[in-house]
């Protein structure tokens, strides 16, 4: 058993188990602040979840070259990971991760495969209020993924294509599944793929902006989760934020980050380090098999 030498950085891992992918981050926190050592994401597809978790975790640990970790923090659906030291819940970790990636952020918009939520927080990452979508998938990531699949567009291309749109076509159906019919109709009416995608982005953006607005947030909103990297959606949300409520509400600036999808895992790792010090745990929580 080894202990941290005084002054040596605390090594923690965050594992975020989502409904479509598992994300893992390894973090070093020491005198000079925190540093992300590695990050890994693995899609679940139709595999057994524990296998995917192990894979994401091991990849991140290997990339970080860590032999031991002082705290392994889980978040999302990861409550039952046997080697986790502690669990933090999704909004707690997204808020913390967002703050790390964008210190000016005072709210988070987290959009994943099946959910969307807006979280208001203070300057220290404490969740003050939140709003989430109900058990209806209209406007979720999965919905977008389905449409993209139908259109034959790969995940990475959605954003750039949407950005090319000149005349977005509104989707009329609210239902994520029945909207497909609309899309089929659009395709056959000769509407271009960019215009269709942007139309869908716009309708999603409307929902997300309503979520954010219902919390009365202002200033910087951090965009986290799997859809945060979608530049088309970003643009649609920014447009909706600036046009819809012009003059009526405070301006909100939406900020995304290349590591947005890891915000939850990162937040978990950060909180892990915090708890490790606060509770004065000492020792390693996890040691690599090679070392052990």
């Amino acid at each position, binding site marked *: 058993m080894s202990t941290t030498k005084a002054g040596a950085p605390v090594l923690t891992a965050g594992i975020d188990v989502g409904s479509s992918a598992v994300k893992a981050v390894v973090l070093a926190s020491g005198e000079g602040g925190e540093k992300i050592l590695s990050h890994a994401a693995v899609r679940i597809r139709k595999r057994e979840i524990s296998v995917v978790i192990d894979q994401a975790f091991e990849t991140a640990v290997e990339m970080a070259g860590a032999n031991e970790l002082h705290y392994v923090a889980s978040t999302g*659906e990861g409550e039952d990971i046997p080697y986790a030291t502690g669990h933090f819940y*999704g909004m*707690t970790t997204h808020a913390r991760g967002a703050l790390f990636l964008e210190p000016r952020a005072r709210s988070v918009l987290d959009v994943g495969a099946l*959910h969307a939520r807006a979280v208001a927080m203070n300057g220290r990452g*404490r*969740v003050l209020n939140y709003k989430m979508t109900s058990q209806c998938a209209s406007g979720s990531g999965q919905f977008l993924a389905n449409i993209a699949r139908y259109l034959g567009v790969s995940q990475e291309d959605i954003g750039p294509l949407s950005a090319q749109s000149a005349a977005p076509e509104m989707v009329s159906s609210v239902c994520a599944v029945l909207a497909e019919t609309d899309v089929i109709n659009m395709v056959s009416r000769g509407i271009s793929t960019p215009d269709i995608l942007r139309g869908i982005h716009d309708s999603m953006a409307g929902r997300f902006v309503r979520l954010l607005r219902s919390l009365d947030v202002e200033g910087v909103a951090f965009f986290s989760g799997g859809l945060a990297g979608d530049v088309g959606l970003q643009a649609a949300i920014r447009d909706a934020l600036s046009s819809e409520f012009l003059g009526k509400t405070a301006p909100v600036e939406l900020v995304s980050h290349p590591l947005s999808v890891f915000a939850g895992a990162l937040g978990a790792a950060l*909180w892990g380090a915090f*708890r490790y010090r606060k509770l004065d745990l000492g020792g390693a929580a996890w040691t690599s098999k090679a070392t052990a």
Partner: protein
Amino acid sequence: MRVCDDLDFGIAREWLAENPGRKACGYLPVYAPKEVILASGLLPVGIHGGGDRLEIIRGDAFYQSYICHLPRSVIELAQTGRLDFLSALLFPSTCDVIRNLSGMWKVMYPDVVVRYLDLPQVTGTETGGLFWEGEMRGLLRDLGAVSGRPAGEDDIRQAIRLCNSLRSMVRELYRVRRERPWAVPTEELYSLLRAAEVVPVETFLDKARAYLAAAEEQPGARKDKSRVIVAGAFCEQPPLGLIKTIERAGCYIVDDDFLLGNRFLMSDVPTDGDPVRQLTNALLHDTVRSPVLFEASQDGKRRLMKERVEAARADGIIFAAASFCDPALLDRPMLRAGAEADAIPCIAFQFSENTGQFQQFREQAGTFADSIKLWGDNE
């Protein structure tokens, strides 16, 4: 099988089989005077919806999607013959949904004695007292006719005594949970109290004593969890899974509104003097403050949650209301504003009795517990 999952009311049916000639009287949430039912020689049976095990097939034929779940499952129970052992059914004035259900029952089940029961909204002893005493005597008369054994004063006193022990047992259970929530998980407490709604009072008292003794012996270990009050679920009941979810997401429930009727009267009802008058007085002056009664005091709603938080030494409040429940949902902004003014952390969500997915609740309750855990002493 847990009693609260027994959609066929087996224990009540057994009781009826063992006591030929006796009858059962049901009541809907929140409050009905059990004393009157017992004094009239009837078995009181609480009808609190169908929970998450009942598949709703006909109930939906009676209710639009924007009406809470409770009445549709109650109708489902009735339409599938599960309530056919009730000779009378009482509909307290909890809200317009239950009020209207009383009329529906009259139309659909003309053989059942149906009574709509107003609540003591006007608490002046003169006006309100006269009215409520009249209501109580009317109910005694009606239920006496059902059972064929109209209650005498002594019957009423006897029933008051029994209900006093019931109430004091409930208070005791709540006290023990408040003090050692790790020893009395709400999941267990709730199941026990739910059973109290459908079994004879004596049976419940025995069970409860045994439970307390066992809890004493196996005290369990205290965990690093936040203490919360779950407010707002006084009528339609949350599925047990939701209670478990809250507790597993890092919270100890130390006070709640579940099955509120069993502690609607807050202290013992005196057994001397005219028992009807005593019961009336208790109803006018000793009722728990809740969304179903008009709040007479100007800032009563503002103070209520602070008082409850202090009494339960809670860290925060989870407002959990049934979807489409007007009384709970319209109360919530007032209660919440009061709590927040006193810097009490709160969250709010809506459920329905047959909710089967708890992810969302876990996230919310967990984030709430996290924020108390991570920030509790710093901010």
